[in-house]
C-alpha cells in the first residue's frame, strides 16, 4: 500500500549550453515528505520537469520502485503513479469537478468509441469516478466548490483544486511545486495541514519544492538543497539549516572577518 522509493541517480540536464542540473542524486523514501530547496535558479523546477517527463535528462536515471522513468513521455509517467502540481496553476476551463475528472484520466479507460456510443460500462465508470473525485475534493476542503467554474475562484482555492486534481490521479508520489506560493499565513497553515494529512492518510510520498522555509522545515522529514544545479547538502531539516554550505548559498559569501 505504501509507495515505492523514488531513486534519482546522478541526474544531469542541459539546454543550450546551460547546465540546469549537474549530477544530482536523491532518494525519496516510501511515505516520506522530502523538501527540495535552494536559491532561485538552483534547478528545482528543472528537477520536477525531468521527473515528470517534460525535460529529457542528458545523463543519470530516475527510478520509481522497479520502474525506470528516465526517458518516458509525461503521459506514460502518469500511469506509474507520479503526479505533480504546477507553479503557475494550469487549470482548464470548466467546473472544479470537470478539472478533477481530468485528473482521473489515467485511471479510467473509456475511449472514443465507448464514450460516443454511451456504452453502459463507460457511463458507469465515469459516474463512479465522479463520486470518488468529489470525495477527494471534500478531503482537500473543496466540498463547497465542486460545481463552481474555476475561473471565478480565488487564488488560494484554485491552488487547492490543482492539488486535488493531482490527488485524483491516485498517485504514489506527489510532486508539489510551490504549493503555498502567493498565499497568506492562514492559507499556508491550512495547506500545510492538508499536505501532512495527505501523507498520513493516503501514504503518498511527497517531494516538495518551496521557498517558505518554515513550512518546509516543519513538514519535511528530509531536505535536499540545490544550488546552481548541484546538490550541496541534504539531511534532516535541522542539519540542513546549520550546514555552512547552505547558509553560504542563500546569503552569499561574506568577506572573511
Amino acid at each position, binding site marked *: 500500500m505504501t509507495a515505492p522509493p523514488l531513486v534519482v541517480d546522478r541526474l544531469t540536464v542541459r539546454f543550450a549550453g546551460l547546465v540546469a542540473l549537474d549530477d544530482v542524486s536523491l532518494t525519496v523514501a516510501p511515505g516520506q515528505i522530502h523538501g527540495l530547496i535552494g536559491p532561485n535558479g538552483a534547478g528545482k*523546477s528543472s528537477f520536477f*520537469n525531468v521527473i515528470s517527463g517534460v525535460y529529457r535528462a542528458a545523463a543519470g536515471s530516475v527510478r520509481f520502485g522497479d520502474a525506470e522513468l528516465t526517458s518516458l513521455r509525461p503521459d506514460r509517467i502518469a500511469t506509474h503513479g507520479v503526479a505533480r502540481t504546477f*507553479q503557475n496553476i*494550469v487549470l482548464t476551463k470548466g467546473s472544479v469537478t470537470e478539472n478533477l475528472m481530468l485528473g482521473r484520466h489515467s485511471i479510467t479507460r473509456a475511449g472514443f468509441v465507448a464514450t460516443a456510443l454511451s456504452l453502459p460500462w463507460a457511463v458507469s465508470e465515469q459516474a463512479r469516478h465522479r463520486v470518488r473525485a468529489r470525495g477527494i475534493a471534500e478531503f482537500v476542503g473543496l466540498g463547497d466548490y465542486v460545481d463552481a467554474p474555476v475561473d471565478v475562484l480565488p487564488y488560494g482555492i484554485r491552488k487547492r483544486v490543482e492539488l486535488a486534481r493531482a490527488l485524483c490521479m491516485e498517485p504514489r508520489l506527489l510532486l508539489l511545486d510551490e504549493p503555498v506560493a502567493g498565499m497568506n499565513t492562514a492559507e499556508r497553515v491550512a495547506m500545510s495541514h492538508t499536505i501532512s494529512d495527505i501523507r498520513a492518510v493516503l501514504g503518498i510520498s511527497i517531494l516538495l519544492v518551496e521557498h517558505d522555509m518554515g513550512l518546509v522545515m516543519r513538514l519535511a522529514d528530509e531536505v535536499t538543497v540545490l544550488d546552481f544545479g548541484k546538490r550541496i547538502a541534504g539531511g534532516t531539516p535541522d542539519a540542513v539549516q546549520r550546514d555552512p554550505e547552505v547558509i553560504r548559498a542563500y546569503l552569499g559569501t561574506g568577506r572573511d572577518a
Partner: protein
Amino acid sequence: MTTFVQMVINGLALGSVYALIALGFTVIFRAAGTMNFAQSSVMLLGGLLVARLHEALGFWGALLVAAAATALISVLEALLLRAARKRDLASLAIMTIGFNTLLLAELSRQIGSDVLSLGDPWGSRIVEFSGITVAQTRVASLAVAGVLIAAFFLAFRFTRWGLAMRASAMDVEAAALMGIRRRRLELSGWAIAGGLAAVAIAFLAAFPSQGLDQTTGEVALAAFPAAIIGGLGNPAGALVGSLLIGVTEAAAATYQNDLSLLGSGLSLIAPYVVMVAVLLVRPQGLLGTRETSRV
C-alpha cells in the same frame, strides 16, 4: 543533359519567385505569430494593379505602385488582426482566411473571366546559350528576385531592423508589453511581405504563363509548403524550401511524360508531395527547431 540544365534553371527561377512570397510568410510569422492565408489575394491585387496601370506608368512604374498598394493593404490587414478578440493561433489564422475571402471576392469580380497581361518588358523572348533555351522572364526573375533576396538577408543580418526581427519573441502578449516600437516592427514585416508579393506575381503572371486571371493568386499557396519545409520563421529555411519546391515543380513538369503513371498535372501537386515527405521525416521542417516549452 540540356533538358536537365534547363529544368534546373527554370526550377531555380520559379523557386526564387516563391522565395519572395515565402520570405514574406517568414517575417509575418516572426512578427505576428500567424500564417497569412490572405497572401494569395494580396498578391492578386498587386497583379491586377500592374495589369491596369502598366500602360499609363510603364511596367516598372506600375510595379512600384502595386508594391506600395500591396504593402499598404497588408498593413491594413495587420491592423484588422489586432482587433481580433481571441489571440490564439487558430483565430488569427482564420481572420486572415476571412480577409482573404473578402478580398478575393472583390478581386474576382474585378477580373471576371479576363486573362490580363502585365506588360512586362521581356514578353515571350528567349535566351539561348550552349544549346539551352530559357525564357527571358525566367532570367529576369532570377536576377530581380536574387537581388531582393540578397537585400533581405543583408538587412536581416546587419541592420537594426533585422536584429529586432531576429530577436522577436513571437509572443504577442510579450510584444504588447514591449511597446510601440514592437508594433511598428510588426507592421514593417507585413508591409515588406506585401511588397515582395507584388514583385512575385509580376513574374508569375509573365511568360510562359498565359497572364493574370482569377486563379493566379492560388500560386501563392505553393509557397506555404515552401515556408513549412524550411521551418516556419526561418528565412534561410524559406529560401531553401522555395528553391526545392521550384526545382521539384520544374522537374515534375519536364519529366511529366515519364511519370505519366502518376497522372497528369503532377507539377501542381509536387510542392505538397515534397512537403509531406519532409514533414514525415522532420516534423519541424528542414531548418526548424523543435519547440521547447517551459512550465
